[in-house]
């Protein structure tokens, strides 16, 4: 066999690579597989949250806001526990971001509320006078794209095995089931139910009316997404 290898430089090179890479492979691959497993307490995104996430991406929130708390005292003081890789298990793509023009948002759901987001997205300077963030008033009139959100969920469930409709372990030992609609109509109905819960804490009458009519403005989906970032 070795004689054969000596005569075939290409396969010899492949063999050398495998031998040299072996130590790296047995150290890196299992560790990586372990770390990328969902952290206990991380749940798949609901339809409305996915729609909010898509609005987040569409409006390039990640250009100014990171979602990655590094293990430094100064960051954990400000934003909470440092991020774990398993917390991004259901993020496709992850939104770590590379530049903080605004603050990190990875755990913004812990210290901001629906009402705060509502007013802040409409007119940031009314809440934080020195803010340089622009307002996003069109989110209050544009409707969220629930169809695409549902499509993304279906893809995640079918091709990536994201555990929709299955019990997911939580930190307190209980389990939670994130439901995935069987049809677009059902997904719409479920998203609307969720939207109603968010809107109950909002004040904008136009948004409330829209949800009562069965529409879901983008801002509602976005707030549902931001509130879940914990």
């Amino acid at each position, binding site marked *: 066999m070795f004689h054969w290898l000596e005569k075939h430089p290409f396969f010899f090179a492949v063999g050398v690579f495998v031998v040299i890479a072996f130590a790296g492979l047995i150290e890196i691959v299992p560790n990586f597989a372990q770390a990328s497993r969902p952290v206990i307490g991380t749940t798949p995104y609901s339809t409305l949250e996915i729609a909010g996430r898509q609005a987040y991406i569409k409006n390039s929130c990640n250009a100014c806001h990171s979602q990655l708390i590094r293990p430094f005292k100064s960051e954990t003081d400000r934003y909470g526990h440092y991020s774990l890789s398993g917390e991004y298990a259901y993020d496709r793509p992850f939104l770590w971001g590379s530049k903080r023009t605004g603050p990190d948002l990875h755990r913004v759901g*812990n210290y901001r509320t629906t*009402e705060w987001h509502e007013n802040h997205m409409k007119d940031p300077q009314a*809440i934080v006078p020195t803010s340089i963030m622009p307002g996003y008033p069109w989110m209050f009139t544009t409707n969220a794209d629930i169809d695409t959100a549902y499509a993304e969920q279906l893809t995640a469930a079918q091709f990536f095995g994201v555990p929709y409709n299955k019990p997911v372990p939580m930190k307190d030992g209980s389990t939670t089931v994130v439901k995935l609609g069987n049809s677009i109509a059902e997904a719409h109905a479920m998203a609307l139910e969720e939207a109603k819960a968010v809107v109950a*804490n909002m004040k904008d009458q136009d948004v409330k009316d829209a949800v009562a009519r069965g529409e879901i403005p983008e801002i509602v989906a976005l707030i549902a997404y931001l509130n879940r970032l914990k």
Partner: protein
Amino acid sequence: MNKLYLWGIIIAIAMLGATYVTVGYQKGGLNGDIVNMLAVAGAVALVIITIFVVIKYVRQMQVDQASGELADESWDNIGEYKNELPMGWALMFLGTMVWGMWYFLAGYPVNAYSQIGEYNEDVAAHDAKFEKEYASITGSRLVEMGESVYLVECVACHGLNADGNNEVDAADLNARVSEKTVKYVVNHGSNNKLLGTEMPMPDRNGLFNAETGALITDKEIDEVAAFVAGGLKDTNSAGAKVFAGVCSSCHGPDGKGMEYVAPDIATWSQPLIVNVLNNGKVGTIGKMPAMDRLNSKQKEAVAAYVISLTQGE
């Protein structure tokens, strides 16, 4: 003398001379700078060693005869002499093996770098420093710390003047309770862990007025709300009577609350504010998230700051 040695000496002198001239032309020359001196000394050593080592091997190639015992193996008719291992090399080889064992078994597992480990050390060092410098501060320094924490953590909702923010419905911290809050709490009851534990207050269907013997009425709610929001000062008002009949059995005749029973609704108190920071609260104007990331001294400081806001009056 061999011709080679002569050439060696000539080249050495030429190179050293070139080095001397080059360095000497620089500002300050050789005497100006210890680094220049070292460079020249290094150059001298290098040139001399190089030339003599080269000469040695050139001589060897010229005069050496192959000799010694041939090994049995023949590699495509190229033979090999049996030589002793050079001592230096052998020692390094063994040393590397010993070091490798140590590194595999102890060196790496014990001393490996961990980002989280560094973070934990950092936090421990910071906490120790914080403890040393701030654990025992009181009075105005505590209020100052509270203000600085407030300006970072609380200002986004409660505002620079701590007067709350109607847009996001954050409470005005310059007064203990607003009329709106009193009305809401009486109408809906409350359970905000203000005492640190679950301690629900009943809604209006559980609030009897001991003086009239009936449930609290809308008019009485308006009266008591005005009285409580006014700081429980106007003791002759109708609200004061309602308070005595309905509220004082738990909140005390002076509104200062009772331990394990009801919170102080007359003034801000430290345990109350710390409990709100720990648990957050939900009330008439919305939800306040828990700010439990602050350490206990910082919570105390925020409480001191909020208390100081109302003491000025």
